[in-house]
């Protein structure tokens, strides 16, 4: 009996029909009904079992050190548990903190100011409405060059060194 080859464009309906016909010819029957869903397949995922003497499986402490290196976040605007001050209050706070920046407190204040900027921006429908404050914070943080070439049109990826 010749080998059956399956055309690439054969539909699942047609494949099952032809297989059923073959099965009848050879007195075979499937152990369970076969789904006609286009994506049906039989699958399984198995953890591998190493021998009890294997030294490959890390201890709990080693696994934690390797694995627990991430934090999770979702956008502020879809986080129902996050309470944010109003954009206007945040704007005033940011302006005040920028004025009080010194070389001594810069490293402490700037991350907080960036966070406040994100809090304010997430509550606004358009980042344009805080564009000047946004620009002021980012230039203070990253230098004058940050916003050069930001108006490139189309599909472009680029980079620029800060403070140069």
């Amino acid at each position, binding site marked *: 009996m010749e080998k059956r080859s399956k055309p690439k464009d054969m539909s699942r309906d047609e494949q099952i029909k032809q297989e059923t016909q073959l099965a009848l010819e050879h007195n075979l029957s499937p152990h369970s009904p076969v789904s006609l869903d286009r994506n049906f397949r039989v699958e*399984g995922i198995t953890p591998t079992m190493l021998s009890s003497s294997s030294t490959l499986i890390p201890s709990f402490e080693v696994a934690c050190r390797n694995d627990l290196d991430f934090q999770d*976040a979702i956008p502020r605007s879809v986080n129902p548990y996050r309470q944010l001050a109003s954009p206007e209050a945040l704007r005033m706070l940011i302006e005040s903190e920028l004025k009080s920046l010194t070389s001594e407190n810069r490293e402490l204040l700037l991350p907080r100011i960036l966070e406040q900027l994100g809090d304010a921006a997430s509550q606004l429908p358009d980042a344009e409405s805080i564009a000047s404050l946004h620009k002021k914070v980012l230039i203070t943080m990253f230098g004058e060059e940050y916003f050069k070439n930001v108006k490139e*049109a189309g599909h472009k990826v680029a*980079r620029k060194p800060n403070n140069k």
Partner: protein
Amino acid sequence: MAVYSEFYKDINFGGALETFTLDDNWRYWRIHFTGNWNDTISSLRANAYAGYNGNVYAFSDGNFMGRFAALNMDEGWTSWWSYVGDAMNDTVSSAILVNRNKNELVIDVKQQVESVFISGMDDALKGTQVSRRGDPRIYTTLWPGYDPTKKFVSIEQDLTVSVPYWFDYDAQVRYDVYLYLNGGGSVQGYVAWVYVWVEGGILSGDIFSSLQPKLVAGASTLTGKLQSLLAAFGSFKFSSLYLLPGPPPPHAAGEILDVKSGSTLVLVH
């Protein structure tokens, strides 16, 4: 903080904005774009500073899979996509920010593993009804649902099962390799999971029952080969090991690729 990023709903950094910052206590910041932020991002920008280089990856699927738009930043640099392109536009569902150290060994996993896997697989399948179909796809799987705290190098191979007097069946095997640093800082690894599927049909169940145990048993052979490859690093001690999606990031500002295009292992001295 070490990586600061901005995601915008419109092109050219317009529309609504969400910002995320990754501080230097963590390697990854995992972002899930849910609600009205899912499938809406068109541009993004990021900066690395405070002693770190950095990467940002924005994925089309919610589980850090699919296609990604990546940004690569040396410390003090800003990189951006003013438009992620038509294929990625309004598809981003998840993202990661990654802190990168200065003193790293960056390894293209596919280059190291592919030929060893192919020759081993061909040896194991010789004389059987199963044959490889195409070359393996080697990629990074991040925190999958079946093992949500771990990252893997996945080796995925399409197979053809030739059934006498019948249609051929498509099948696939995927080996998830877990790499880690042991207590002494040496690189170790083993195949932690094996995933098999067989195309749906009247003989699927029988083929799966016959094929799957053999492919699962092959995991120990693959683990042995991995140990031989990892022995090359045996005399070196590292402080941190992590994975990146795709092949090693180029020096360019960014790229758009499929997650299954490669896997990068990073070892920090």
